[in-house]
């Protein structure tokens, strides 16, 4: 479903992502692990088209997308739920969600249906329907960001560090929702995390980034045993 071929990405003349190749099949649930500054966000922004790779190709459903504008990539069904959430702070929860369904804007019943499903995951969003997103706590904003990215029924969802800066209880809740997005909704999910514990417990396999390079990949059960991963990311 997603295929990266020797992708290099520069920011301001600096090579941030170096020679990354990876592949994700339809229905998979994959983790992208790495410490702060290892390049997870830059890689995700490259896949979503916000940044363009200097060298290399990104294919989605066998179509090269690395030269397409971001909104075209969203229309194809690849949606990034970004780090920092990037919500519309002075718009209500409802409008944030409606705009999340922008590619489906002519289909009001589908938007309703998708919104109801988001409320099943995060009932608090329904209670706060008319409140501005900017008045929310970090955890609530993260819920809204995930909800917004589900509104257009993505085929592939990239979730960039959804647990960063949140309380353990919220992290647990969000982890459960992400797991059910993968299992119940049959959405292919690519999850980036510094918090390897959470990610390795819910995903099937993972890639480990260091200094913009992929240094390790494999099944989660193996990664959990790996001495380097344990030391660096689990703290055990």
């Amino acid at each position: 479903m997603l295929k990266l071929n020797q992708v290099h990405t520069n920011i301001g003349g600096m090579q941030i992502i170096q020679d990354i190749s990876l592949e994700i099949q339809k229905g998979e649930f994959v983790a992208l692990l790495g410490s702060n500054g290892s390049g997870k966000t830059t890689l995700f922004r490259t896949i979503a088209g916000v940044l363009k790779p200097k060298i290399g190709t990104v294919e989605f459903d066998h179509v090269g997308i690395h030269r397409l504008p971001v909104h075209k990539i969203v229309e194809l069904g690849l949606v990034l739920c970004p780090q920092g959430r990037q919500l519309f702070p002075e718009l209500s929860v409802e409008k944030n969600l409606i705009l999340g369904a922008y590619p489906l804007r002519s289909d009001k019943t589908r938007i309703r249906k998708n919104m109801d499903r988001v409320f099943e995951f995060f009932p608090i969003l329904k209670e706060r329907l008319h409140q501005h997103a900017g008045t929310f706590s970090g955890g609530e904003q993260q819920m809204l960001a995930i909800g917004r990215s589900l509104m257009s029924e993505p085929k592939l969802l990239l979730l960039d560090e959804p647990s960063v800066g949140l309380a353990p209880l919220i992290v647990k809740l969000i982890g459960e929702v992400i797991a059910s997005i993968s299992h119940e909704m049959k959405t292919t999910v690519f999850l980036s995390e510094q918090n390897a514990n959470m990610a390795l417990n819910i995903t099937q396999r993972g890639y480990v980034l260091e200094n913009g390079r992929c240094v390790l990949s494999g099944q989660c059960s193996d990664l959990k045993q790996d001495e380097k991963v344990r030391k660096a990311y689990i703290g055990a």
Partner: protein
Amino acid sequence: MELFLQQVFNGIMFGSTYAIVALGLTLVMGILNIPNFAHGHLYMLGGYVTYFFFATLGLGFWLSLLASMIILGMVGVVMERVVFRPLTGQPPINDFIAAIGSLVFLEAFALAVWGPQGLRITNPYPETFQFLGITMTVQRVLVIVAAAALIVGLHFFMKKTVLGATIEAVAQNREGAMLTGINVNRVSAITFAISTATAALAASFLSPIFMLSPSMGAILGMKAFIIVILGGLGSIPGAILGGYILGLIEALGGGYVSAAYKNVFAFGALILILSIKPTGLFGKKEA
């Protein structure tokens, strides 16, 4: 009392124009993050285009107004595409310089085509009537009514339509808007078109009342800029209220003291309001 009411009426009329021009400036500012300093000059061009259709080609007032709005809307789209879009992602000073360049060009263009002398279109509605003891012309009432209708219409457009919501979304978080599948370039172009077409509307309604001159854009652009600061940068209600307040201050100050000092009152009010509330009337707290 008559003088007071007469000046309030005039103030609301000036204020209507200011409110619309400032509204257009605020909308585009949300997209560019700097004020488009050429906005007053686009207003000026709108007045001349109306003059061209009305006085030169002899079309009716309403048709000329419509033609002017359409043409200025297209000018807005071209300006976004050619002048500002290539500067996306560069430091704001570049947009700033581009806007100054545009206004110099627009003023020189109007000067070359229509000359430096003031032009005026014949008033299509010169009838006067008495109301509450003050004299009103139909044209001036029309300015007030049209501005109010436009403001209400724009409000519904922004708050009740998806397209309106995308304009707010792009202003509040450009990358977030892209990631929801919004074509931000298209939204920028539409925002410019709305901004320039509404400026043309305001200019068309005022062109039977005031002389057109190539330099009128600079003064109005400066005032719109004041209003936008007064109302709180980027705030739509602030721009509207600020427009009416500035119109009233000018009319009352001009009526009771001296018309020669009306700009003194305008700038004085700006300094006063900003010293009390540095972020403007509707300004947000610094993030």
